[in-house]
């Protein structure tokens, strides 16, 4: 049976092991070299050098798709301002506002109780608008 080693001898043994391990590690015995930042980048492509046009071309309407592509790709090259940025609206803003106005009424009607549904009347245009008048107690006039 092996008796446990003393704590001191244990520590010594550990230190010796560490020493051996660290001595085994290799390291370069050189002075510190500063990495030179290179200012020159090598590129083998002609795209950076010359602004070349797009490779597919069509003239006088021979291939309409290619002509459209030509405009697109060459405009991208020259970074021109794209005039057709504004998307053509299918529905104008005013119509949209009107629809939303009546939409409130329609949805409101859905959640209104049976008695309140009578409050919603149809306008001249067929839009449903809620009437703001509420039934209050009317004092009988003598």
């Amino acid at each position: 049976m092996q008796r446990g080693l003393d704590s001191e001898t244990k520590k010594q043994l550990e230190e010796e092991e560490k020493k051996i391990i660290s001595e085994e590690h290799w390291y370069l015995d050189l002075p510190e070299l500063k990495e030179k930042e290179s200012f020159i980048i090598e590129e083998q492509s002609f795209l950076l050098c010359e602004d070349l046009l797009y490779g597919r071309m069509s003239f006088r309407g021979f291939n309409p798709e290619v002509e459209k592509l030509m405009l697109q790709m060459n405009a991208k090259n020259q970074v021109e301002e794209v005039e057709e940025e504004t998307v053509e609206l299918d529905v104008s803003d005013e119509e949209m506002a009107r629809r939303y106005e009546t939409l409130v009424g329609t949805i409101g009607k859905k959640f209104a109780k049976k008695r309140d549904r009578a409050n919603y009347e149809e306008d001249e245009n067929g839009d449903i608008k809620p009437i703001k008048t509420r039934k209050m107690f009317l004092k009988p006039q003598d």
Partner: protein
Amino acid sequence: MAAAAAVVAESLAGYRARAARAVLEQVVLPGEELLLPEQEDGEGPGGTGERPLRLNAGARSRGRVVCGPGLRRCGDRLLVTKCGRLRHKEPGSGSGGGVYWVDSQQKRYVPVKGDHVIGIVTAKSGDIFKVDVGGSEPASLSYLAFEGATKRNRPNVQVGDLIYGQFVVANKDMEPEMVCIDSCGRACGMGVIGQDGLLFKVTLGLIRRLLAPDCEILQEVGKLYPLEIVFGMNGRIWVKAKTIQQTLILANILEACEHMTADQRKQIFSRLAES
């Protein structure tokens, strides 16, 4: 030409590197070293190798200089590897010290990443097509690299078809790979080129000249009759017009443009326009 050669021979005999700025638009030969603008002062009078103290830090923050085709980096200098004219482009927006390159002439194409090329399908093996692009190896093109292609919906590509695509992998250690879609997945005009038409080969320099933004040749050609042209950076051009005769005329013009002067070209175009 003799004067230029004499100058070059003189400088090579003296074995001094020249300033890049002094040699712009002149003929350079392989083996020459070029100094970038910021290094000129250090090599100035006396050439003792001592750099004068600079009080302004502007010199160091010149940004990166790009050396393009025909040039290599050699320490802090540029080494010329192809013969041709040295060109320079100023940086468009801020960063960078501009681009230097050599405008050389050659017929052999070396695949470069990002180039749009015309290839001919030579074989179909499993999931990929082998496409001949004029380089040392046929490029591989996956069948999924077309717009709207899925595993069930395969593209209709046969052996012998013409493909217009771009390289995604192209270096000297690997087989080149090309695709027919861009990074967003759209075709952008790439893919199989249609029926009929004529494919012919020209030098690489002519292609770059024709694709320059202010090319007169193309403007004049476009006025002749309705036609379609596809340019591949590997020296291949595909043309198509309504009749075979018109197609052949077009092919002959483009091939001959290499060696014609502007006047001769104008004569030919005016004769064609009459007929």
